[in-house]
């Protein structure tokens, strides 16, 4: 069941010294009871008067996530005029996110775009002259969120979601058809089948939740494209980055045959690294498509890693790339430092106007330099990624968890020998939650499916 208590990261996600997680709604106390403890062992914030702060720890079960300052504001003296808690933590993306996720797992839901402001307004907190601004925020942010959730959702995940949703809808429609027309449609033996299918669907959803944990539902993270002429060592670099034990890696099948994407974490920062077809002039039709695609990805990238080959002279393909990265955030790598150099660092530095890092993908040297450089760029604010995508991912994960919960409820009902009509409520709830991820509403889906799939009626 959807809760009324909302949570979000109130500060930017990128490079803040302190991050604030804000929670608002009637369940604030019950959430804090589960996740906050003071050094003297007191749980929760119930005893803390409004407008005071407490020092303590955010915990998840037995493990401590971070030491924090908690600021409590009691209704109506808060931004939203509801009970509000703000958790100040040490910042850092990983910890901040972990705290938000813990808050959500214990009873809050990710705030919709503009929802804090909306509540503040509806509860009379904000000056009426600001109403139009509030309205604009709600509508534009929602549109962006919807666009994100649909556009950024990977094709393979969209397909899986659709399969699970279709399966749930069909089962519900069957139950409902049987309830509405018991003399035509029988539910004998259906429960066993249903149980199996739910378990299968739960398996898929659990897997999706895992993907969400790793930021793999959406193309989250800094969009990084590796460019270089064929055989410069792009794929070796990709493998090296992906195979590093510090990186969390799961391969995602690319939407196309010729582009490979991997989610890589370097010093806690997510990178969505795209290995492209080598850029060169070609007459081969298939390869041409690949090269075109590489160019397009590169245009939208947050960061380009240009891999040059030190063992052969720079050619017109390198020229094109060098020209291309002039107005982009880019890192230049000189690969094959293990071989006799034809191109040296000085030459490449002069040509690109950038610092050049020498690496050998074969001997695995220079990778640390690369990682440090990338992390420095991020923490100095030269690089940033789209907060919205992370937040959308968070919302989608919450929906997945809610759907999972609903399906488990159906299994419970089956276990407790409840009649079939009790299953539908939770089945449809799961269906609705999964629809939120793909931006589809429920409307008349159930009734339409009943009539399309099952012959019923007098």
């Amino acid at each position, binding site marked *: *069941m*959807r809760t*009324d208590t909302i949570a979000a990261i109130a500060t930017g996600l990128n490079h803040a010294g302190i991050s604030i997680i804000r929670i608002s709604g009637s369940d604030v106390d019950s959430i804090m009871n589960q996740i906050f403890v003071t050094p003297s062992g007191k749980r929760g914030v119930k005893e803390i008067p409004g407008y005071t702060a407490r020092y303590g720890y955010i915990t998840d079960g037995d493990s401590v996530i971070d030491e924090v300052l908690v600021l409590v504001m009691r209704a109506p003296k808060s931004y939203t005029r509801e009970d509000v808690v703000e958790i100040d933590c040490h910042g850092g993306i990983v910890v901040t996110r972990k705290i938000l996720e813990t808050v959500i797992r214990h009873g809050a839901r990710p705030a*919709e*775009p*503009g*929802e804090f402001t*909306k509540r503040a*307004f*509806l509860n*009379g907190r904000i000056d*009426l002259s600001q*109403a*139009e601004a*509030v*309205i*604009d925020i*709600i*509508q*534009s942010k*929602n*549109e962006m969120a919807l666009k994100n959730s649909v556009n950024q959702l990977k094709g393979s995940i969209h397909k899986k979601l659709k399969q699970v949703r279709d399966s749930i809808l069909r089962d519900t429609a069957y139950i*409902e058809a049987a*309830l*509405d*027309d*018991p*003399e*035509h449609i029988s*539910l004998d033996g259906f429960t066993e089948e249903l149980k199996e299918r739910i378990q299968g669907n739960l398996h898929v959803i659990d897997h999706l939740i895992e993907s969400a944990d790793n930021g793999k539902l959406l193309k989250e993270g800094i969009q990084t494209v590796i460019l270089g002429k064929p055989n410069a060592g792009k794929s070796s670099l990709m493998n090296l980055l992906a195979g590093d034990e510090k990186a969390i890696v799961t391969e995602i099948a690319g939407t196309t045959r010729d582009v490979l994407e991997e989610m890589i974490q370097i010093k806690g920062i997510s990178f969505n690294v795209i290995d492209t077809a080598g850029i060169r002039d070609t007459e081969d039709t298939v390869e041409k498509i690949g090269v075109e695609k590489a160019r397009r990805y590169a245009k939208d990238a947050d960061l380009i890693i240009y891999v040059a080959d030190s063992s052969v002279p720079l050619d017109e393909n390198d020229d094109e790339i060098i020209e291309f990265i002039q107005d982009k955030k880019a890192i230049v790598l000189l690969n094959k430092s293990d071989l006799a150099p034809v191109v040296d660092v000085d030459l490449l530095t002069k040509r690109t106007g950038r610092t050049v890092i020498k690496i050998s993908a074969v001997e695995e040297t220079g990778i640390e330099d690369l990682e440090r450089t990338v992390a420095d760029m991020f923490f100095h604010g030269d690089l940033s990624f789209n907060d919205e995508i992370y937040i959308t991912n968070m919302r989608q994960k919450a929906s997945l968890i809610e759907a999972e919960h609903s399906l488990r409820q159906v299994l419970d009902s089956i276990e*407790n*020998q*409840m*009649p*079939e*009509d*009790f299953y*539908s*409520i939770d089945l449809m709830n799961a269906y609705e939650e999964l629809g939120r991820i793909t931006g589809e*509403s429920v*409307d*008349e889906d*159930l*009734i339409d499916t*009943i*009539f399309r799939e099952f*012959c*019923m*009626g*007098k």
Partner: protein
Amino acid sequence: MSYQYESYDVVVVGAGHAGCEAALACARLSLNTLLFTISMDSIAMMPCNPNIGGTSKGHLVREIDALGGEMGKNIDKTYIQSKMLNTSKGPAVHSLRAQADKQDYSRSMRKILENTEHLTLKQGEVCEILVDNGAVTGVKTYSDAIYPCKAVVLCTGTYLNARCIYGEVSNATGPNGLSAATHLTDSLKNLGIEMYRFKTGTPARIDRRSIDFSKMEEQFGDEKVVPFSFTTDPNRLTKPQVSCWLTYTNETTHEIIRENIDRSPLFSGNIKGTGPRYCPSIEDKVVKFPDKNRHQVFIEPEGNYTNEMYISGMSSSLPEDVQYRMYRSVAGLENAKIVRNAYAIEYDCINPMQLKPSLEFKKIEGLFSGGQFNGSSGYEEAAAQGLIAGINAARKLQGKEPLILDRSEAYIGVLIDDLVTKETHEPYRMMTSRAEYRLLLRQDNADLRLTEKGHEIGLISEERYQAFLIKKKQIEEETLRLENTPIGAAPWVQEILESKGSTPLTSASTLGELLRRPELNYEMLTPLDRERKPLPADVIEQAEINIKYEGYIRRQMHQVEQFKKMERKRIPENLDYDEIPSLRIEARQKLKQIHPESVGQASRISGVSPADISVLLVYLEQMRHR
């Protein structure tokens, strides 16, 4: 030349299931009421299936009864077989269905109408609704008589510009060959009302003597009959019941249909109206589900007065010769004699989104409507709307707020909210899957949900109300007693539990806890429950359901709380949606068309997104302070 006749408070047009309820409600609320019917012999006629109730429709009838309507009482008097459907499933989907003696049903209702104070019946066709300054002033009949009135309830059913069709035969008549009403549509169009054209159909009636029942499965009624009306004493329902019969179509039937499908007016394009998906014709079923090699056919008596049998499951508009071959291919119908051919009927109805949830037209004050005229299908759906339209016409004249049931209170609420909020493209049939809070909207607790309201309106007598209050109190006390009666893990307790196939207790428990075990029920707990006093069966039933499904019921009640928050946020009638910045175009258009009464209703309009609702909420808040 037109002339003026006596004036009435309310005129009801049509004496079908909607019209009867509307007229009775108005008259019983002491309004001077005139009920028009095309024929005095077609009052409360059942032109299609010979039964009342069924899944979710049975719920509607019990709700009608709890509000003080007549349908439940009338079927209790005239049923010839009764059955509770879905008894193997949860209590929320148990549904009553009774076979009626059609003539008995119609006559019995006529008798009630004819003997109700303040109610006048009149045979005649209403041709024009008279409106002045956006408000109803009277009606005009075919004979040019004008009856001034303050409110009109339109319950024209399937009569407006009706056309009955099978094969190449097309008659401009209403159901059963009764004359159609051919003038009113024009008057309504002139008033700016948007009309739809819907269709429905009915199967053939076959002479009982020509049927070989030995090839069919007999279908009996329940031994213990549950009445529809909460006022009917179940112990008095002991009359002998008739049987229905089950047989099946087969590949030969389907072959005959497929070979002649081009002669069906549905496929040739001769029928333009939209039919209900719930009542597909047999040719529809065969075309849409080619893999099914047989379809069920129920043979149901039309009444004790006749040999006509209703062939449920085989409605059709195929030509007569095809009908003969098709019916005769079914086991047991080899020598069937058709008394009445199957036919499809096309008729005019309205786009119900022109109505308020009170069932009054948004554009015309004092004009109400109910039943198939509103784009629904079914006797029960019609009666439910008729009752609400009648009550609200009366309340309007009495200067009272309209009765609007919401989706968490009654199936009637779901029915009307769907009709006035969601676009209907076919005759709307009630279904349990349409009710999102159905665990709370059970047929067994319709009185607990609605008697209070019926009493407040004035359709429930004081005596009935007092009896209801006692029942309510008994349920509360018994539920509480069961929840609070401790049961220790003593050896004698364990023994009894074991004998009932249940697991022994590991620690002290309560009767309530035991009742929640799926394998136990109230009856089985008798030996453990030493303080139990005798209580009426309906009280025990409620206490048991309350406890057994407590967790689920609590969850639904929580959902209802959330739902009510949005229902309570009213939208002013004159809100100018063009003034609201940032509404998406689609949402703006829909909101302008429907003018929802609450934010909750707005949120159910397809094409209005949650973000649009947020925008609307912020705007309303801003308005409130201006």
